[in-house]
Every structure is written in structure tokens, then in C-alpha cells.
């Protein structure tokens, strides 16, 4: 008995030492539980709800840590701004902000999955387990403070999403998308790891604070530069930054729509975390010699322009959203290039609003597809009459992506441009090109809105009934898009807090 009590108290002590990691731990255990549970035939429908509940609890935990940083939690002691595993992981406002984005996206996707994953489909357990594991990977990236851990987090998320893309393995398009995703993903992972090894070679450390300290004194600056280039290429893949974007349109189009939403809204933001962390912290001291800001600036211009210009041509909404997603990543890259605390906060805020808008938009496409509406823009004609509620949500989400009030997209894009202008210098041009791109992008968003409110081509087209889980996810996302407008100051304040806390990481050794 005393052994057991001992063990329990040890466990308790160990848990309370790692309280900040509880959401990851919880989701991992849940994912592992889902696999055996899925073998229980009568529990098939419960799997999604189970995963949803888990994500809900994890979100609540993150909220609790963010909102009440000074409150004790149960028997555990609060551990915020605390580093774990010898500084390899840090839980602070920064990691919690991104954790919240990832978890909200995962929640919406999981909710919509309740109807996307049909009753009779095989491998439901794997679907939800992989979804949770991908989320865990993203949470790891959010709090990693170490290049290896960063790499591991990215890979957990990537490998899970490769499999998720191929989840409908009988579907040729889905399998093709997955194999492309996997091949390019493999190449990029290799590049990233290779870059990490060069950086390690140059600085003798993989921990960001130590890299920052050692980088200016390295005897091999060219090794550092090479490492940085290779890492940018690796992150560029996750970011779908041009020219590392080739996989994205094919994968977003081929994957199950819920997974497209997850990739575009969630896992893309992982690259924002990683890039900002590695370069602002690790390479912050050598910005003058490595020129990573210039590189990100050029990538931002390329990414915005290619994404928006090619989106003009798309007739398939999923593909249009894929290119729009590339364009939006370009705006966030502006913030990465400018890299002042305000700009970082703006980039963070755009990550949040984009997650809601793009997630909502993809889920809306999925929901309408589930209700029998096609993927072509022409299929959406007359939606204003056939489903007024969804049409309104679609309008708001698309206006948000175009950056028009009353949506959060307006403020977040505005903040990005405003902070770029405030930073002065050549960053001004990033804002100018971003503005031109915004104007361009309005064309293809407005095209869809116009189709929605056009009279239906066929007289007497039936009313569209979007399945409830999908509709709920879309409505929640739309409310979020409106809330990020009306409570912009609150959201931007949180983003600023997160950006501030990123900069304190420099002092961690």
C-alpha cells in the first residue's frame, strides 16, 4: 500500500512539475485510447464526441492558463513562464496564444468531422487519433524552445497529416494528394534537419537562447548562413510560401475537406511559430549578417503575388481557397520580415483571424458539399435563396479574407500593413505591395459573393440543408470572425502580450 501511495505522490509531484504540458499529455493519452476503443463496434459514433470532449478540455486548460496565470489549479501549482526539460520547452503567453489557435481549429475541424466521417466508413478511430496527434505536434511546436524539439513537433504533425490526407484511401484524388504531400514533406524535413545540423555545427547548441548568444562569435559564419537558408526552405514548405508551395493546391483540393481546413487554418500556423521563434530569437543577434529579414521580405512578395494572381483563375472553390491561403501566408510573412514587436503581434493576430476565416470557409465548402452542392463557383449560384444562413456566413467569411469590415480580417491585415509602414525603411514597400495584392484579391472573393446572391440558374432549386455539425462549426467560426472585429483591441492586446513574451525567450539560457 505504501508503495502505491508513494508512486501516486511521485506521480503527483511529477505532474505538478509539468502542469504546463498537461494539454499535450491529455491529448496524447486520448489519441492512444481511441485506437483500442475504435475496435468496439458499438462505440463508432462515440469516437468523434470523445475526441471533441478531449479537445474541449485541453482548450479549457489553455484558456485557464492564459486568463488566470496567477491562480493555482486544483492541487497543482501554477507553472507559467516556466521552462521544462532543461529549457527545451517553455510555456508562456506566446505558446498559449498559438496553442489556443491550434486547439480552436482542431475543435472546429473535429466538430465538422462528426458529419464528414460517415457512419459506415472504416478507420474512424485512426482518423480521430491522428487528428489529436497532429494537434499534439502543433502544441509541441508552440512551446518548443529547441531546434530538435521543434523538428520533432513539426514531424509529429506532418506525418499525422500525411496519413489524414490519404484517409479515404479508395479515393484516387486523396491518395495522389497524400503521396505528393509525403514526398515533398520528406524532402523538406530533410532540408530542415540538414539546416539544423549546420546551425548546430556553427554554434554548438540547438537551444535558441544559446544559439543567439553564440551566433555572433561563430568562427564559421557561412555555416550559419547555410543553416538558415536550409531551415527557411524547410519552414517554407509548411508555410506553403512560394516557391515551396507546389504541394499545397493539390493537397488542399484532394484531401477530405475537414483536413484541408485543418492544414490551411491550423498546421500552416506552425511555420509562423517556428519561423518567428528561430529567426527572431535564434538569429536575432545576427540579422545584420544573415539577412533573413530580406529573404522573408522577398518570399512575402513572391508568396502574396503568386497566391493572389493565380487565385484569379480558379473556378473550383477549394482550389481558390488554397491559393488564397498562399496569398494570406504572404501577408503573415510581411510581419515575419518586419519583426518589430508590433509587427509580430500583428502577424499573430492575422494568424488568429486567418485561422477562423479560412477554417470557416473550408468547412463551409465541406458542409455544402455534404448537402449536395458542388465545388465549382457556378454551383453556388442562388445560394442566397437556397440557404440564406450559410450564404450570410459565406459572405462574412469571404469579406474577412478580403479584409473588409465588419470582420477581424480587416483589422489584422490593417495592423500588418500599419506596422510595416511604422517600421519604415524598405518595409514600406512590403505594405504597398501587400495593399495592391489586397485590392487584387477582392476580385476573386467578390466573384463568389456575387454568385451566391445571383438568382439561381435553375428555377425551383431545392433548399440546401447543411448537416448540423458542419453548420455549427461554420457559425462558430463566423462568430469568431465578427468577434475579432468588435473586440479587436482585446485580441490585439493578447497578441501583443504573446509577442512580448516571445522576446523574453532571448534571456533564457
Amino acid at each position: 500500500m505504501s508503495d502505491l501511495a508513494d508512486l501516486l505522490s511521485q506521480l503527483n509531484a511529477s505532474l505538478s512539475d509539468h502542469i504546463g504540458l498537461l494539454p499535450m499529455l491529455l491529448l496524447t493519452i486520448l489519441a492512444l485510447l481511441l485506437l483500442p476503443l475504435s475496435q468496439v463496434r458499438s462505440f463508432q459514433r462515440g469516437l468523434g464526441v470523445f475526441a471533441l470532449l478531449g479537445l474541449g478540455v485541453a482548450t479549457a486548460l489553455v484558456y485557464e492558463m492564459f486568463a488566470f496565470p496567477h491562480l493555482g489549479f486544483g492541487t497543482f501549482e501554477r507553472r507559467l513562464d516556466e521552462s521544462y526539460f532543461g529549457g527545451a520547452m517553455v510555456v508562456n503567453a506566446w505558446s498559449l496564444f498559438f496553442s489556443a489557435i491550434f486547439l480552436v481549429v482542431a475543435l472546429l475541424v473535429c466538430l465538422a468531422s462528426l458529419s464528414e466521417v460517415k457512419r459506415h466508413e472504416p478507420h474512424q478511430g485512426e482518423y480521430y487519433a491522428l487528428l489529436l496527434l497532429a494537434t499534439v505536434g502543433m502544441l509541441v511546436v508552440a512551446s518548443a524552445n529547441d531546434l530538435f524539439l521543434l523538428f520533432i513537433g513539426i514531424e509529429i504533425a506532418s506525418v499525422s497529416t500525411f496519413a489524414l490526407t490519404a484517409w479515404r484511401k479508395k479515393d484516387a484524388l486523396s491518395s495522389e494528394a497524400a503521396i505528393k504531400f509525403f514526398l515533398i514533406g520528406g524532402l523538406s524535413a530533410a532540408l530542415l534537419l540538414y539546416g539544423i545540423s549546420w546551425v548546430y555545427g556553427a554554434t554548438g547548441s540547438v537551444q535558441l537562447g544559446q544559439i543567439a548568444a553564440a551566433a555572433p562569435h561563430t568562427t564559421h559564419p557561412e555555416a550559419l548562413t547555410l543553416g538558415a537558408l536550409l531551415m527557411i526552405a524547410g519552414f517554407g514548405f509548411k508555410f506553403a510560401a512560394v516557391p515551396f508551395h507546389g504541394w499545397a493546391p493539390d493537397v488542399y483540393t484532394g484531401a477530405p475537406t475537414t483536413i484541408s481546413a485543418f492544414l490551411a487554418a491550423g498546421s500552416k500556423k506552425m511555420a509562423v511559430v517556428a519561423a518567428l521563434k528561430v529567426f527572431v530569437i535564434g538569429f536575432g543577434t545576427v540579422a545584420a549578417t544573415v539577412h533573413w529579414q530580406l529573404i522573408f521580405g522577398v518570399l512575402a512578395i513572391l508568396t502574396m503575388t503568386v497566391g493572389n494572381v493565380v487565385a484569379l483563375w480558379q473556378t473550383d472553390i477549394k482550389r481558390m481557397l488554397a491559393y488564397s491561403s498562399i496569398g494570406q501566408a504572404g501577408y503573415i510573412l510581411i510581419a515575419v520580415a518586419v519583426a518589430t514587436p508590433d509587427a509580430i503581434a500583428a502577424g499573430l493576430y492575422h494568424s488568429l483571424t486567418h485561422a477562423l476565416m479560412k477554417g470557416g470557409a473550408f468547412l463551409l465548402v465541406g458542409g455544402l458539399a455534404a448537402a449536395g452542392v458542388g465545388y465549382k463557383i457556378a454551383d453556388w449560384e442562388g445560394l442566397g435563396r437556397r440557404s440564406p444562413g450559410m450564404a450570410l456566413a459565406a459572405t462574412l467569411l469571404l469579406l474577412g479574407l478580403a479584409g473588409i469590415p465588419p470582420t477581424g480580417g480587416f483589422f489584422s491585415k490593417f495592423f500588418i500593413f500599419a506596422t510595416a509602414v511604422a517600421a519604415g525603411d524598405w518595409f514600406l514597400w512590403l505594405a504597398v505591395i501587400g495593399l495592391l495584392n489586397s485590392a487584387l484579391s477582392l476580385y476573386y472573393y467578390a466573384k463568389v459573393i456575387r454568385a451566391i446572391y445571383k438568382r439561381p440558374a435553375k428555377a425551383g432549386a431545392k433548399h440546401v440543408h447543411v448537416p448540423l455539425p458542419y453548420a455549427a462549426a461554420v457559425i462558430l467560426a463566423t462568430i469568431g470572425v465578427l468577434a475579432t472585429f468588435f473586440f479587436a483591441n482585446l485580441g490585439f492586446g493578447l497578441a501583443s502580450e504573446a509577442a512580448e513574451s516571445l522576446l523574453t525567450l532571448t534571456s533564457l539560457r
Partner: protein
Amino acid sequence: MLEHLLYLTWLIPFAPFLVFGFIYLMAALGWNLGQAAGHLSLIGVGISALLSVVIFADVSSGVALGPIEVVWVSFPSSGGPPLQYTMGLQFDHLSALVGMVVGILSFLITLYSLGYMRGDVGLHRYYAHISLFIGAMLGLVYSNNYLMMFIMWELMGLCSYLLIGHYNHKPEAAAAAKKAFLVTRIGDVSFLIGLVVIWNTFGTFQFSAIEQAVGGIKDTMLLAHIALLLFGGAVGKSAQFPLHVWLPDAMEGPTPVSALIHAATMVKAGVFLVARSYPLFVHADPIALTTVAWVGGFTAIFAASMALVFFDIKRVLAYSTLSQLGYMFLALGVGGYSAGIFHLMNHAFFKALLFMGAGACIHAVHSNDMRQMGGLFKKMRWTGLAMLIATLSISGLPLLSGWWSKDEILTDVLLSGVWHADILYFFGLFTAVLTAFYMFRLWFLTFWGTPSHHAEHAVEAPPTMVVPVVLLAIPAALSGLLAVYVLDLPDFLEASEGMAGELFFQLGAFGLGSVSLELAGQALGSVMALLGLYIAWVMYGRRYGKRNVEYLKDLGWAGVLYRTLWNRYYIDQLYVGFCTMVIVPFVRLQARFDQGGIDGLVNGIASAAFALGASLRRLQTGIVSHYAAMIVLGIVLIAVVGNAQTLAGFLDELARQNFGYGG
């Protein structure tokens, strides 16, 4: 009562806003709420009205309800404090008083709508827009900064447009809505430019901050520009000359809308704006207040003259509203800050009553034409009596509410040192005669004499309509007395603003004040009202139907005058002529330039973008090895970008070594 629950006050604008959102949401989900929407609106407006009354009780008993504010958005600006836009409510004496009047009237008129609008096909639309309007009006009254005020101002403009055009199957209604929207837009632009100048001058939109800073600004012409730009907005919203043309046409809307928006509340927003901006006007060059006084005084007599000849009951009331709004601006312009607000309050009560009563008559005889009414007093005693009280009140019969405020205005004009106050005083006095005349003409034509055959089967309106009308008769008669003896209104308002006293001093310094003159002036005002009443009695009361102003039509010069009035001084025609002769050709010219030049440029850029897209699109081959190749090329690209300096140096060196020149 509210000092510890201050955040509840956000419900004042938001309770109606939520009702609006809910009705629209239900409509979007395919659920037409119909009459239930009316009950919902009534609840929403009821909450706001209740809160506005509580706020008034608190403020008037001396409880300080501090302003509540939220920072809506703040973002970093280059080298300076962050730019901040705050949304906030402030509860001083001005907003508490006007807010209470608006709250109570909104509630009563929404109640009245339940009866008047019953059976309409677009009920959900109607109540959604009414709720949105009420929320916006209250938001405007309580807002503590110009930006929020402007947002609410524009929202009201939108609601006004939607509600005037509520009967959208009627082409006149659609045209009137468009006219109202376009004409007020002219004022809105002026207001907006004023806001920009305010921001540039003061760096804030907060009233309190501006009030503090305004004394330190020595450039009085700059302040006069700001003040006049704001006044431009007020001229549009409050339909003063020369932007008065939209209000009579706005009577195409449902009658409760006319009562609420186009008589009691929205058109007062312009007066309220000037009152809110009074510190600016006071410190500005005197040209600002002089303009306000003259525009107001002129509109008062000008609009009253047009009210003499029309037979459409709502149109007569509309011209009367214009004229009374002119009185309010006249008061503000000559420094009678409290007199202007006093008249605003009194007028809101009796004019709302008059419109609602007119609506009851229209409801009974199914026509707006007073010639088809007549003798209604026997059929509709409650309505007739209430309307009589309001008519007496607006005419300025002693001790009724209109008398108090009108006399105060005339006295203030007399005492002020404004440019040619004597002419303005004459305008005011003569308007009083005209007012009493046209109002009693209206009352006699409608309620007196023998019923026309349309009116024979008229019956009293349902209780939801009569009860608000009768209830309103109480403040319509007594608000003046109560305000002076219970509230001590001039002190109440001036104490809160802390600038009116200063102002009186400023203007009085070159005024010609004397007590005996004041008394004589008051007596004269009442005599004028009685004179108007007497003429109306002779022409329409004693010998009903025998004499009419339209007999003037055939009488030489009087006929010319009559036709001028009937054609509204040809101003509408003038505007139409101006538009077709000047604006339309100019716009055509611009269109040609736009289509040829601008559109060509835009199309050129667009097709360039499309062409770029078409070629970039080919990169998306769908072949994985191409994507991998792109990644490798990408690494080369960023390597070049990242080492551009080194490369440039290297090339430089190369050039120097080989060709002997360079950096």
C-alpha cells in the same frame, strides 16, 4: 441607482440592436416573425427607455455617473502614442435629458406601431429597422465622442432611408427615400470633413478632451471652420434651408416613422450635434453662431409660410417641424443654449403627438387629405382632444409647454448681440403668428365642421394607438411648466456644461438687454399666437368650409404668392433643374473620362494580373518532381537574396581586377 451597475447602460443602445439582429437572423433562417417582431422590439425599446429614465433620475438628483469607455481599437503609430478609438457613453445633464425624451417617445411610438402597422406584409423588416434606429439614436445621444456619434448618425441615415421606403411597392416612397438619403448625404460629407479637421486639430474625438483643449486654441477662424462644417451636417440631418427639401417628401413613410424619426428624434440630431459642440461654437469666431442663428431664423419663417397652403395633413406637420427646428437653431445661434434644448424637448412631445394623432385620423378615413376629413371630433373625441392640446401648445398659448420655450427663445433673440437681431426677432415673432394659424387651420379642417363623406364612418383608433396619444398629451401640455418649476431647466443644463454662463456673458456684452423689453417681448409673443388663432378661427372655424386660403389663388398678387408657396418657392424645381443642366452633363463628362481613362487603366492592370496568373498557373503541373525542382530553385533564390551584398562585392572586385574600374 445605476452607479454600481454602470455597465448595464451599454444595454441602452444594444438592447434594440440585439432585437434588430435577432429579427434579421430569424428572417435569414426563413422565419418571418410578423407581429411578434413588434412585441420583441417593444421589449428591447422598453429596456432602453427604462434605463434612460433611471439615468435621468440619477443625474437630476446629483448622482455622478462617470463616463464608461472601452478602447475599441488601438494600434501603434510611428513615433507617438498609439492611435486609439474609444467607444463610450457619457451621462451629463444634456444627454440625460434628451436621452430620456428619446427613450420615452421611442417606447410610446413603438407601442403605437403595434396598432398602426398591424397587417402590414413587411412587419419584420419594419420592426428590425425601427429597433436599429432607436438603438442608434440613443447611442448618438449618450456617446462621448464624435466618432461614435458619426457612426450612429450614419446608421440613423440608413434606417431613415429604409423606413421612408418601407412601402417599397409605391414609387413615390422609393423616390422619397432616395431623395432623403442623397440630400442628407451632402450634410454628412460636411460632418465627416469636420471630423477630419477635429482630429487634426485636437488629436482626439472625446468631447471632454476637446472641451478642455478648445480654450487654448487661439485661431478662432479655424474653430469657426470646424463649427460650420459640423453645422453643415446638422443642416442636412435637421433639414434646414437649403437642405430642407427631403423632409416633406419623407412623409411617404409610415406615420409612426414620421412621428419618431422625422419629427421627434432623428431630425433633432442636428440640433443635438450643435448643442454637443457648443464649446467649439462659443470659442469660435462669432460668424459661426451668427450663421446658425440666421439659417435657423430664416428656416423658421420660410417653412412656416409653406405650411399655410397644403392639404396633406402630414406635409403640413412636416413643414411645421422644419419651422420649429429653425426656432431651435435660432435659439442656439443667439446663445440661448438652454432655450434651444428646452424647445427640442417640448417640440418632441407635442409634435410626436400631432403625428400620431394625424396617423389615427389617416387610419380612420384612409386618406392624408384634410379636405376628406372634417368633423372628426364627434367620432374620435380622445384623439381630437389630445390634438387640440398639442395644437394649443405648439401655437404658444400661455402656460402650455410651447409657450415657455418659444418665449425664452424670443427673449434670447432680443437680448443677444447677434448681427441684426431685430430682423431675427421679427422672423421669430411673425413665425409665431403663422404657426398658430396653420396649426389651427389643420385642427379645424380635420376635426371641425361637418364630416365629408369619407369621414362619416370614421371610428376611434384601437387602444394601442389611442393610449400613447392620450398619454403624450400630458407632457405636451405640461413639460414646460414642469421643466421650469420642478427641474429649473436653464440651471440644470447650464450647470452641467459649465460654459453657457460664460457664453451669455460673451454675447450679452454687446447685446442690448433690458428687463422691461423682456417683459414686453413675452407679452408680444402671446399676442401673436392669439392673433394667428383668431385668423384661423375666422377663416376655418366660425364659417367652416366657406373661406379658405386657396381663394387667394385668383386674387392677383396674392395668387402669385399662393402659387409660390404651393410650389415650395420653386426650390425643388431649381434643384432638379440644376441637376439636369449642370450636374448630369458634368457627370457624363466624368463618366466618359472614367470609362476611357480610368477604366482603361484598371482593365489594363487587371488583364496584366490575369496574364501573369495564366503563366504562373502553368507552374502547377501536378508533377511532384517539378515541385521538388521548384524547392531547389527556391533555395538558390534565397541564397542569392541572402548574400546579395557579398555577391555584389564579389562582382565589384571581379570588375575591378579585370577591367580596372568600379567601386
